[in-house]
């Protein structure tokens, strides 16, 4: 039990940053509940990225604690009661900085993967 829990937490650590970015990015289109966020990430990534619930919910609660998202109980389109998360102004700022950081990482990794292109630059 203990070991399993640690494994979950490790996974969060690995995904942290990236998962935050994905969640914040998803929420910029409007409020969404946990399941909706999960489905959205899966759909937009062409079924490649699947967020574990054991990572998703802790991340959502942490983001709420950090003040980047707020939550509210609302009815879904199919008339289900669900907890909807919404981006706060602070969350929007955070999203921008995470996007910038992501672009940096992508650039850096691309530079490593494709040295020719890097050398070709002035």
């Amino acid at each position, binding site marked *: 039990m203990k070991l399993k*829990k640690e494994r*979950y*937490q490790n996974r969060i650590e690995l995904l942290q940053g990236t998962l935050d970015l994905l969640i914040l990015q998803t929420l910029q289109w409007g409020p969404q509940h*946990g399941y909706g966020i999960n489905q959205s990430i899966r759909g937009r990534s062409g079924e490649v990225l699947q967020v574990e619930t054991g990572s998703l*919910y*802790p991340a959502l609660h942490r983001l709420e*604690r950090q003040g980047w998202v707020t939550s509210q109980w609302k009815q*879904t389109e199919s008339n289900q*009661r669900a*907890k909807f998360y919404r981006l706060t102004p602070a969350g929007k700022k955070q999203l921008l900085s995470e996007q910038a950081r992501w672009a940096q990482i992508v650039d850096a990794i691309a530079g490593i993967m494709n040295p020719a292109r890097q050398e070709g630059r002035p």
Partner: protein
Amino acid sequence: MSFRDRLLHRRQREDELDEEVQAHFRMAAQERMEQGETAEQARVSVAREFGNVTLVKEVTRDMWAFRWLETMLQDLRYGTRMLRKNPVFTAVALLTLALGIGANTAIFSLVNSVLLRPLAYREAQQLYLVREIIPELSQTYPTLPANLPNFLVWQRDCHSFEEVAIVEPFNMTLTGYGEAEQISGGRASANLFDVLGVMPELGRTFLPEEDTPGNDHVVMLADSFWRDRFHGDRTIVGRSITLDGQPVQVVGILPASFRFPKGAQLGALTEFPPRTDFFKPLGLDPKHFDQLGQFDFVAIARLKPGTTARQALAELDVIQARIAKDANESVGLRAAIIPLES
């Protein structure tokens, strides 16, 4: 937020998390059913997909723990701010705490020194009261206090004693320092504090030569008396005060922990008053004392290490018998040895 509110709040969050997870299950199952799965198939698939529900909840709840701590820090910051804003309240609260703690400490110190450590003397188990026995008088007085000439013989001849001292209750009148006052204390052989193993808080104890008549115009003051009457003035040491119309030099102050046995604690016929404000040396001429009279003194002996009370008594009884024989009196003389701490 009070502790109770916080518990309620946490309880509410637990319920919300349950509901959030259930909502996820329902939505996922519904979507699967819309895609053609049976209710049962959907339920199984969603459960497999979701993973360990208890674990997910547990890891999620861990995220709140930080919150818990943060709220506490916030409370603490708020508390500090309020204390700073209300200096009077803060001062009263601090004073209350200080007095409470102080009173407890004071009471403990008192209990410790008065009750738990009745006699704060060095190696008090080695200290014995020496009493004299005149068998012819033992019907009326089983034991008697010591007398001066016999004490001098013990001091000279008894090898079981490391040292022996005598002291008797003594009153004097203090004048020239505010209102005249009769003060009670003790007149002691110069070595009393050596025998008891008490070091002065200030100044010194008595010198051997101060036991002799004319050299005895020195005094040691009890801590409480020094504080009450002389306001704890440290410069009093070395100065003279007037006792019984004579200038007497204050040579030392006894430590606050010093207690002298009161009442009949030192045996019948030697009643020390409740307060012993001072001690002065004997300053007595043994020539003025009868060999078998004036049994007025408390004698306190410190036994040599390794010597038992029984051995000391055996030796002392031999000395006593010799004294009685030399005095050529028709009475016998023996001794008794009683632990001081009994």
